[in-house]
């Protein structure tokens, strides 16, 4: 019964955040457009040489995904913090980590999933072929939720702090590095024919670890921020 109640609460939170995102569609579009734009800048900067583009594609696309996740992290808690809703959420008779999982899931659905779905398109622009494209999408699918979970810690820590948008980048980007390495590495090694299995397993392990630890850390940080 209690477990059922927890699951229902989780769904309620996700549904609420999705409804809010639906009312502010421009926010969602900004993230996606940012991803496409950053990805398109690199060929302009590096030159249209197909071989070069194919080499830098995994890193560039992963960094673009990372930055677009960072861009949307500021919105994760700030609006709810400013209008007092976050305070009410702390008073929900459910574990606070559950609320965090719900909010992060919604955040990923809004800002992570579109990036994952669009990535093959950008991959094509960089001359990636069949298998590498699939691995790119798969690696983003496994990696971007981890980014959202880690980023939530930074978002909660910098809540209501002066210059929080820059600070959050400084806190969170170093923590993103392993995800970047394994994510981009998966695409590179699949392109060079080594196979991406090991990288993808490590990404999966990272996701599980983030799922286990990050909600707790975020919940603690939210309590600290709202004292």
């Amino acid at each position, binding site marked *: 019964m209690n477990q059922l109640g927890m699951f229902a609460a989780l769904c309620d939170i996700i549904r609420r955040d999705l409804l809010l995102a639906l009312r502010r569609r421009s926010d969602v579009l900004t993230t996606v457009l940012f991803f496409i734009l950053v990805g398109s800048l690199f060929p302009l900067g590096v030159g249209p040489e197909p071989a070069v583009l194919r080499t830098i594609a995994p890193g560039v696309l992963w960094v673009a995904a990372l930055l677009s996740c960072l861009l949307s992290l500021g919105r994760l808690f700030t609006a709810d913090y400013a209008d007092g809703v976050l305070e009410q959420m702390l008073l929900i008779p459910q574990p606070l980590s559950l609320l965090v999982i719900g909010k992060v899931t919604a955040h990923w659905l809004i800002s992570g999933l579109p990036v994952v779905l669009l990535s093959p398109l950008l991959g094509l622009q960089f001359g990636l072929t069949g298998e590498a494209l699939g691995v790119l999408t798969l690696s983003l699918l496994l990696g971007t939720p981890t980014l959202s979970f880690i980023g939530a*810690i930074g978002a909660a*820590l*910098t809540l209501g*702090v*002066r*210059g*929080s948008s820059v*600070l959050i980048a*400084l*806190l969170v*980007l*170093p*923590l993103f*590095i*392993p995800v970047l*390495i*394994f994510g981009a*590495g998966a695409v*590179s*090694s699949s392109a060079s024919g080594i196979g991406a299995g090991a990288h993808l397993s*490590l990404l999966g392990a*990272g996701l599980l*670890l983030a799922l286990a*630890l990050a909600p707790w*850390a975020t919940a*603690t*940080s939210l309590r*600290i*921020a709202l*004292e």
Partner: protein
Amino acid sequence: MMGFARINWFKYSSPQAFYPLAGRLIPWCAAAAMLLIGAGLYLGFFVAPTDFQQGQSYRIIFVHVPAAWMSMFLYVVMAIWAGLGLGLNARPSFMMAQAIAPTGALFTFLALVTGAMWGKPTWGAWWVWDARLTSELILLFLYGGVMLLRTSIDDSRRADRASAVFALVGVVNVPIIYFSVRWWNTLHQGASVSMTAAPKMAATMLMAMLVMTLGFWMYSLAVTLARMRCVILERERQASWDTPPSQQDALEVS
């Protein structure tokens, strides 16, 4: 030394009692640091044998390796104090974490600079994406994050606790980051001469490194204690614990 055993250590967990104790310890730690670092430098620069492959330039590792060890060690110590602070809700623990962070960042920076100085003659470039150097760079970012987060939050209680959470998140991540950078490095076949696989350790070299590490450790203690005194003065400016000893005794009795 025997006298120390009878001291009630809990007595020193309050800022009032800690402040004079730290004042008495600092000169000793500082003197030990100077002696040990001097001896370590002498051993490393004059006693240790010249390396047949890298010549004299390898001698920078007598600074680089202890500094790198220290930077990681201090991060863990800082995280432990931060964790204690969160777990026990103890302000002195947070102050300790706050006092350690700049010293840790300094050693990280030192490790990076000496690494670059070693890289120029060895690899022919100031910066090579060597696994150890890259990890140190990321560690510097983490130290920076802890300190920046603290300074950007005005409320000291929140600043303490938020930076403690970040320090703990960082300490979980440091091994993962280190592992991932190693993995990335082997895949991309970066530098062929790694710092860890540098010359075979002669006994004198190991000795020099250990003496240097001890010296750095003493230095960290001295500087941390001095900074701790400043932090205490700053934080406790509201409280008036500089009451005459007689009054303080009376308070303890009641």
